[in-house]
């Protein structure tokens, strides 16, 4: 008896130490809380189950700005994570930090992992690639902005719910009818800058900034005070004055206004669907965002929002091998399909998109496919690949502040956008100087 126990004990010690020795830990800092966080944890757990050499440890580090601050401080202290999820507006900052990050393309090729850049959807990966097309960060969770409408409210106002407004002219007309029928909030939006400046520019194939929206160099300047921009923001200001557009806030505060039934039309992230499905007690539809039909080239394609995963520098080659393996795992079609269907974020490879289509998922949930369709509506141009502005967190805040000035009636659209350009350029110059 005793000998048997001893043997078992020895054997288990042997197994234990054997297992513990080989596992290299990959630290992954992210900002997905709640249900999204659970889905993310599943990805890590499933990857860890496929092999014994590496273990991805995912840690929730607070919101995007908080986790980025923590990572910066950790990097300076010498103990940064391997992987960091950074929101899209932080791309320029990360890209400029040449010693602190390693491009995904380099890690993959160095580790000799299979890596086919063309397999990825260009609109999705373009945002996170350099001007030569090398992928810098991994487009982990990308969304785009869509146009939602409350079918019940439309019916009540005498509008056809199956005919969503396609142009802004139609939106205004519908809004007036909704208001006339007693609806207090015909239209609202989430993420005003992302929707009405950034995506607006891409959707109409006009630049947000010079030098290919910043892709071409740090000496870019904002161009969001063009006549088209002024006209569009002016229109929104007018709508706000007439009560056709109710401003909800700088982030996703518009989501709740729509799902509660308060607002009949709404533009927000594809990610808002989950919440609307849960809380919305009415019939609703999801559609392409509206455009001005007198602009040549519109509608072009929309750009993504969300975040990507960056690989931090200063780690050992063996650890990068594990990182490469994880990136390859995440690119697998079945993994992509699972992530996409569970979270509402778009799939990043053509193969994953096809697989999801074949599975019939989009027949049950056409909204999920619309996002991909809108992103790939046309092949991206220099104006619609995305944007890359340094210190864009501050830049976006400036744009949001000036937009608020227009919506509240404090300023007219042209001076507000001119100010946004002036203040925004100061921020860009500061970034340029600090990253020479």
């Amino acid at each position, binding site marked *: 008896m005793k000998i048997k126990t001893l043997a078992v004990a020895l054997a288990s010690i042997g197994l234990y130490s054997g297992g513990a020795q080989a596992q290299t830990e990959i630290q992954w800092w992210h900002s997905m809380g709640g249900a999204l966080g659970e889905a993310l944890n599943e990805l890590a757990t499933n990857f860890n189950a496929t092999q014994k050499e590496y273990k991805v440890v995912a840690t929730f580090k607070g919101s995007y*700005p*908080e986790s*980025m*601050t923590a990572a*910066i401080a950790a*990097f*300076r202290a010498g103990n940064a994570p391997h992987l960091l999820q950074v929101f899209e507006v932080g791309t320029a*900052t990360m890209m*400029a*930090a*040449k*010693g*602190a990050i390693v491009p995904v393309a380099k890690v993959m090729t160095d580790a000799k992992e299979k890596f086919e850049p063309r397999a990825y959807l260009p609109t999705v990966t373009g945002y996170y690639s350099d001007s030569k097309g090398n992928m810098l960060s991994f487009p982990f969770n990308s969304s785009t902005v869509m146009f939602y409408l409350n079918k019940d409210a439309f019916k009540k106002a005498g509008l056809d719910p199956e005919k969503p407004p396609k142009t802004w002219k139609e939106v205004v007309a519908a809004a007036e009818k909704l208001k006339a029928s007693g609806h207090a909030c015909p239209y609202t939006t989430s993420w005003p800058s992302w929707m009405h400046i950034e995506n607006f520019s891409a959707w109409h194939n006009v630049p947000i900034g010079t030098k290919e929206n910043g892709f071409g160099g740090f000496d870019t300047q904002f161009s969001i005070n063009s006549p088209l921009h002024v006209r569009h923001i002016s229109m929104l200001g007018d709508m*706000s004055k007439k009560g056709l557009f*109710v*401003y*909800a*806030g*700088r982030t996703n*505060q518009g989501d709740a*206004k729509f799902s*509660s039934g*308060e607002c009949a039309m709404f533009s927000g992230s594809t990610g808002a669907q989950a919440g609307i499905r849960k809380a919305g007690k009415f019939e609703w539809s999801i559609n392409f965002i509206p455009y001005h039909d007198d602009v040549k080239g519109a509608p072009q394609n929309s750009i993504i929002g969300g975040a990507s995963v960056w690989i931090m520098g200063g780690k050992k080659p063996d650890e990068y091998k594990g990182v490469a393996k994880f990136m390859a795992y995440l690119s697998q079609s079945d993994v992509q399909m699972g992530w996409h269907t569970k979270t509402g974020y778009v799939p990043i490879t053509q193969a994953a998109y096809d697989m999801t289509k074949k599975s019939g998922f989009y027949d049950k949930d056409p909204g999920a496919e619309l996002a991909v369709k809108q992103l790939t509506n046309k092949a991206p141009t220099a104006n619609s690949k995305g944007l890359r502005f340094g*210190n864009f*967190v*501050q830049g976006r*805040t400036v744009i*949001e*502040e000036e937009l*608020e*000035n227009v*919506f*509240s009636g*404090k300023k007219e659209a042209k001076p507000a956008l001119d100010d946004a350009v002036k*203040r925004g350029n*100061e921020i860009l110059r*500061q970034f340029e*100087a*600090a*990253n*020479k």
Partner: protein
Amino acid sequence: MEKRVVFRSAWLPYALVAPQIVITILFFFWPAIQAVWYSFQLQDAFGLKSQFVGLQNFAALFKDGNYLESFKVTALFSVLVAFSGIAISLLLAAMADRVLRGAMAYKTLLIWPYAVAPAIAGVLWAFLFAPSIGIVSYVLKGWGVEWNWILKGDQAMVLVVIASVWKQISYNFLFFLAGLQSIPRSLIEAAAIDGASPFRRFWTIVFPLLSPTTFFLLVVNCVYAFFDTFGVIDATTQGGPGQATNILVYKVYHDGVKAADLGSSNAQSVILMIIVIALTVVQFRFVEKKVQY
């Protein structure tokens, strides 16, 4: 003031002050020096490249319309918080000083907001004033007021002022009450005998005698409005809409943590340090006067 009788020991006093001094150096002086050092640098977020630029960050701040705007906003905010806080608590304290019955109960019921964190006070009032579902918004709408603090800067300011003042009322109330109760009754009685009405008595006798307390509270409320209200702003408006509630201390946080602009954030920190030092000097020099009063 020195003690007449003291102990002597070669090593004991050092051992006794050591813990406090060590922590003070590590967590106060070292970061403060770094803040000053970084304010003279232009750095990228990760600290990979840095250039010494002297006072450039400071110059940029003073040229920046937003920063000066932030000064104005902070000044307006402090004035509103200090004055309304003092006025309301003075009224309550004066009333509480008058009534004999229930004074203890009133006191207990009025001081508990001090226990509420400013951030929570902000959340509570934001809930009451929420444009769509808030109960106060509902009442205001009934009175024809279009309430949407997310869009209207003035209304956002009203919200954060109310939340901040609500919390401070108990603090001011206690000090005023203590001050009122230390005024000799004989003075008031003499005036009453002379035929002065309670109203007159208050303004000609009581209020002047309360001036040390009032002044002291003015300074404390200003410091409170400058710094401790960070929680209120962060939990509700985050500096918006536009720049309407972007007080200086919030801007430091936003630029440092959310925007990773360390040079500017640290320069702002240094400026704030100078302001605090000035306010603290005023407070201490004045408190000396109060003690002699």
